[in-house]
């Protein structure tokens, strides 16, 4: 019976869903509900059903498909690295500065590296650094946001001011400062991006927690004597998971962008990595000389990852919000 219930995200018309849910839910009948006539249903099956429905809705969105295909391509490149590149990305193979041709689809750069091989292998560093940084910032931001939004009061006041201070400093400036002080190892890079994004995540999560904490189920939890930690992690957190998921995908896109920017400025991933930002910074001075290909293709790679993550983020948000 309840198999007929579409999840609330199934259609644009809220009214439709309400009717169906009411209809399917059994009976508001005193002494009339017939338990015997109802098929008992496994609760895991229901959850699987809901998850399947969400997947189906996601797969119907072209933006999501395109985004996932692009990301999957780069992940394959990052994992397989020089095993699938046409040439060795770290050894100059040929004459330098060749225009794109059938031998070198994206040409070669001024040192003689095959640009296509470099672009493919260049996915690795950024795809390690950006997701870890994004994950860390989400974890930290969610924690702070939960604490601030739930406890409020002076804790919130102090942390809010701190967040505002951090937000007022330009991201790149701050990153340059940190890497200049601590050096630019991969760990520092991850830490830097994570710290820079945390305040933004904190603010988003805090807002979600504030509205959630006003709901009566939180009051009800307090009336049975739950402590703050339980209310935050078990009651509120599951309900703001969609917000956090969307925030993660958005941050991921920005993290890719930020890492590329830092690499371009020389404070990010270091040579001899075939990293995209690095490649752009190493070759852009050749554009006036007519050599656009060593710059354009890594730049497009950066753009494609950022656009793809945003496509995925938008789709997830739309499906969860519907």
């Amino acid at each position: 019976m309840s198999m007929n219930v579409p999840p609330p995200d199934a259609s644009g018309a809220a009214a439709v869903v309400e009717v169906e849910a009411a209809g399917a839910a059994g009976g508001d009948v005193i002494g009339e509900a017939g338990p015997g006539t109802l098929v008992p249903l496994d609760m895991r099956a229901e959850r699987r059903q809901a998850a399947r429905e969400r997947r189906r809705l996601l797969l119907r969105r072209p933006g999501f498909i395109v985004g996932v295909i692009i990301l999957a391509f780069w992940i394959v490149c990052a994992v397989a690295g020089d095993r699938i590149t046409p040439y060795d990305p770290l050894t100059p193979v040929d004459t330098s500065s060749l225009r794109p041709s059938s031998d070198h689809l994206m040409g070669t750069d001024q040192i003689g590296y095959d640009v296509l091989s470099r672009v493919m292998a260049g996915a690795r560093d950024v795809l390690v650094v950006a997701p870890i940084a994004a994950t860390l910032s989400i974890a930290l931001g969610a924690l702070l946001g939960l604490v601030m939004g739930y406890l409020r009061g002076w804790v919130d006041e102090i942390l809010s001011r701190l967040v505002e201070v951090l937000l007022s400093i330009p991201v790149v400036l701050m990153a340059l400062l940190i890497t200049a002080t601590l050096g630019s190892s991969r760990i520092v890079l991850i830490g830097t991006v994570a710290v820079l994004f945390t305040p933004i995540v904190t603010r988003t999560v805090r807002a979600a927690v504030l509205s959630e904490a006003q709901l009566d189920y939180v009051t009800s939890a307090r009336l049975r004597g739950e402590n703050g930690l339980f209310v935050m992690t078990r009651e509120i957190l599951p309900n703001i998971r969609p917000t956090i998921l969307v925030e993660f995908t958005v941050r991921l896109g920005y993290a890719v962008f930020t890492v590329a920017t830092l690499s371009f400025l020389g404070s990010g991933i270091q040579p001899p990595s075939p990293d995209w930002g690095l490649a752009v910074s190493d070759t852009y001075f050749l554009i006036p000389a007519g050599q656009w290909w060593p710059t354009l293709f890594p730049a497009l790679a950066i753009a494609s990852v950022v656009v793809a993550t945003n496509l995925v983020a938008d789709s997830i948000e739309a499906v969860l919000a519907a």
Partner: protein
Amino acid sequence: MNERSMSVAEAPRTATGTDHALAVEDLDLAYNVRGIPREVLRGVTFHVRPGEAYGLVGESGCGKSTTAYAALRYLPSNAVITGGRILVGGNDVTKMSSKQLRRFRSREASMVYQDPGSALNPTVKIGRQVSEAFSILGVGGKEATERARSALQRVRIADPDRVMQRYPHQLSGGMQQRVVIAMALACDPQLLVLDEPTTGLDATVEAEVLDLVRMLLQDTSAAILLIAHNLGVIRSMCDRVGVMYAGKIVEEGDAVEVFEAPKHPYTLGLLQCLPRHGVRKSERALFTIPGTLPQIGTKLPTCVYVDRCALADDLCRTEVPPVVHVDVGHTEARSEAAHFSRCHHIDRLSQMPEPASDDNDNVLGGKVVIKMQDVSKTFHQRGHDVPALVGIQLDLGGGETLGLVGESGSGKSTLAKAMLGIHEPDAGSEIELDGHLLEGKSSNRPTEDMRAMQMVFQNPDSALNRTWTVRRILKRTINKLTGVKGDEADTRIEKLAEALRLTPRHLDMRPRQLSGGLKQRVAIARAFAGDPRIVICDEPTSALDVSVQAAILNLLSDLQAKESTSYLFISHDLGVVRYLADRIVVMYLGRLQEEGTTDQIFDGPHHPYTEALLSAVPSVDGEPSRRIRLSGEIPSPANPPSGCVFHTRCHRFMEGTCDVIEPPVVEIEPGHRIRCHLPVEELGRTQVAAG
């Protein structure tokens, strides 16, 4: 254009049968859900003449709002009109181009929504918003402002210039709704659709808004289509009414006739669900309508109501019911005010089963469970002290239901929350449970004390964690409050579910898979999980349909009889309070104004405030004989009036006394206390209809 609509407005209201302002004919409408069209409206037909008010009633999900929105062709993108037509002033709305439609909506039809707060733009001053409604009609800037001013005057806003300078959030709900109505009337529409226009408002404000609409009806030629779930509102406003079920109008006729002498089992069922004629829980259970509305898209080849009808027989299952005209004498007559019912068995309506009489004789032991003494609560806002509760004295006996009534802002919820320890009362306040003093904050109370007091909230959507299953919600509550774990807890959950008429299947569902009534049952189950002494119910049925409300009220009354739990029952619906409560307290501005048994409160003598509350309620049984209108708005608790706090709005105000001296609490008969200067013999004694 304006000229034209003006002249329409002045046309005499003697429209003949043919020229309807709104004619909905054989309207079929479906929502496409995943590519499959699902039928929502099944041949809806009705006509509204100019100047006539037509009401649509039915449970939520019956298609009444869809019908109303269809009249303006304001439908979600997956809605498809599959048949029939909608004529407004002779033009078919279903065939309009988007340009015609825009013109139609701006000049010929208007809508008033349920929530005036969200219908107004919060960043634009009232003056500009209202004059915009005129600029759209091509009225120039200065004149538009002028017209806006008179439009506000028309909806009886006393000081339009001041109101025009304000933002929506600076106005009360009733005031906002007036502004929305003023804007809706700007184009002198031929059709005015009101969708639950007073649902979010207090009874006293509702009465004011309804008065206003009724007055405007006198001098407009617009056809009014009113959607409301409150049958009393429909009765007091509408000339004719259509009762909808599963996308079909099952009964239609003169409003008074339909409510006095319903001719369809569904209409009769809806009316019987209401606690009326002063019926009390000790006398009988409320009637409920078994089952729920069919899902949209369900094939209903014969009678749409057959699955829930107590009179249904083979004939109902095999043949489409005839349209039976019940006009006395001439059954064939097809006059405009025809009262008809789609039922095979209107002659058997008297055989509808009566609800069983209940012997839930409350044993009011008289032993006081909770005692509030001098309880005050002051909030501190931006350096100001806002006293929300002032010197509350209250007793609640074992197994007793205490009704708590008053307008919003009177402190009802604050009182409940102070009792529960969600708001810590001011120093000096004393709350005793079974003779021992309670800690002010719930977090400082021992588990035993928390277990003794639980709450059922108004909105079950907000009260249940959407990511938890029903089983987890109940299990956790049992664990925390009683310490019972594992299998023993599971046994308790099953018992609890059975008592609440939840099936085992419901236990593994999440709230969003449940209907509103079932959700509220889960919330009640949670409140009862730790065998509480007192359950605080904060408007537990105000978000529910009448049929569901009746089931919930029956359930609460059964549970009380079994467990001898005490209830503190907050509600603005006096009919409901009268049914359930043994005693009632009336609050105004954080102070108790009157306290007494239910009979004492309803029979009088009344406190003037109670008198006004009682007379404000629109009833399905007709208007109370005398209406007392509360003027003005509830004052700010931060700055309460001197003397008697109610004197600014009181119809019995005595200058020199009420505004100077705080009135004493007088016990006019045993247990009946009133805070008023008037001598007992001068207090009002309104004979109220059932409420």
